[in-house]
């Protein structure tokens, strides 16, 4: 399993958690990497806490279990932090990416997290640009800015091929805005 970067997404059904996981995998695939993206199966219900997973690697990926010790945790909805142990298993040298109005310093203390933290107010970006709290694309902007896991251009390319016309344009704007407005602690 050496060389595999593992990402775990937390959010609620309807926020596009599974799509975020898949878009990230597709962006990495575009860069010639081996990828895997899958939901925590069968739990997808509007509003319920759900998880999705992405693996990215230079070498072929064999493992097919869920992800228990992620390098990166992405939280699309800050309210799941109350019910889900989002930092469980997160590697000390990993990243915690959260959609929140809070500063990373505050969150770091609240969660007693050892990992590096990046935050962004993705909800307000999504409400303004997409007209709905669909934070799955903007949060990828923050993920890219902080972790450099994939290139921003790759994410934009995938959004262009996944969505059409104005929807694609606004999602790209949302990604770019989140990229710029990312707050980072611990680097």
């Amino acid at each position, binding site marked *: 399993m050496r060389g595999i970067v593992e990402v775990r997404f937390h959010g609620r059904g309807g926020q596009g958690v599974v799509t975020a996981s898949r878009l990230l995998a*597709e962006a990495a695939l575009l860069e010639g990497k081996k*990828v895997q*993206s*899958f939901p925590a*199966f069968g739990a997808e219900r509007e509003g319920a806490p759900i998880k999705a997973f992405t693996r990215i690697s230079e070498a072929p990926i064999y*493992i*097919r279990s869920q992800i228990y010790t992620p390098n990166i945790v992405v939280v699309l909805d800050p309210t799941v932090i109350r019910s889900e142990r989002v930092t469980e298993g997160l590697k000390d040298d990993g990243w915690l990416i959260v959609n929140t109005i809070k500063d990373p310093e505050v969150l770091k203390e609240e969660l007693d997290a050892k990992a590096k933290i990046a935050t962004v107010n993705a909800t307000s970006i999504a409400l303004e640009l997409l007209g709905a709290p669909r934070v799955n694309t903007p949060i990828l902007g923050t993920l890219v800015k902080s972790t450099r896991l994939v290139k921003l251009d790759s994410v934009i390319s995938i959004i262009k091929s996944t969505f059409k016309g104005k929807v694609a344009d606004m999602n790209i704007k949302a990604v770019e805005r989140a990229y710029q407005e990312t707050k980072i602690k611990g680097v």
Partner: protein
Amino acid sequence: MMARKVLALNGDEAAAYAVKQCKPDVIAAYPITPQTIIVERLSDFVADGELDAEFIAVESEHSAMSACIGASAMGARAYTATASQGLALMYEMLFVASSFRLPIVMSVANRALNSPLNIWNDMSDTMGARDCGWIQIYNENSQEVYDFTIQAFRIAEDHRVLLPVMVCHDGFVVSHSTEGVEVLSDGEVDSFLPPRDPVYPLDVEKPVTIGCVGVPEYYPEIKYQQEVATKKSIETIKEILREFNESFGRSYGIVEEYRTDGAEVALLTIGSISGTAKEAVDEMRAEGKPVGLLKLRLFRPFPIEALRKSLSGLKVVGVVDRHISFGSCMGGALNMEVRAALYEMKDRPHVMGFPTGLGGRDIRVEHFLKIIDELLMIAEQDALEEEYKVVGCRGPGCIGP
């Protein structure tokens, strides 16, 4: 050779994409989790004019298989997909399809059977249907789903075979997992898979009777021919795999060997869990432990000779089933078959069964490390205490939740 397209596809999408390129004449299917995406994509392809097929939205799986049988008997290339309860409801017609020698291809996204209601993955569905005369291929990932869906049509329709084929992939773990899949061009698929050439199609100009009564004076001969055809199909399957490998740069065999050189103990796996097991083998190898893995790709017909060859010289084999055959002597069907296949072999390895991952229980590398520890202990003691042990379960004698 020009670089091929790599698409992001989950297992269901990979199946649907391959089916589209195989140009079936008739698709009759009823959506059921976790196979649903296959049916959705195929109906999209037909509605959008990308696939010129008759799409029959049937009211049940029994009807799905019945419609495929009728279409296939007319000479059409017929396809369906199902899972779990759907396959169970189809059961009666599965025997009809194989006994009519109809080359129907069916994808199965393996899922547990009720009760309790469970939509997640194990192989109770197809393992329960192992004696209905269908060829069964089990796939580890989306790439294999894609490649073997195409090969399944070629195998089924070969005049030396003429049997229906189930192409199985694990529900959710493969069906809903997106991976990069290197796809062939339409032209490449066309060159590998010519249009179907039916042997005795229903035709009013040249009438034939299919499905009449088989009195005791004839029935055994018909069943004997079916058995001979099924057993013999293994040579044709190997030949078709070779051609596919050579044409498209793959390296598939009916049994896959992973790090078996110098191995004393080995895991024998089937389906997607093989991937996680390979990680465990890598970890054990890094510690210098003599461990390997064999993955069975073909369960029907059972690849006895290939398996005997691969397993000879090993001290212990741990057979990982994804279901329980209740009250059987060996826990799971795969374990039973492997032990039976090895019985007359000199210096046969010890064989222990590990039914695991029932109803979608997530099986991790650690589970396999425990299984391998058990195998190494058996090798050291040269003795087996138990025929099988359930893995990934809370219960006396089970290995870990």
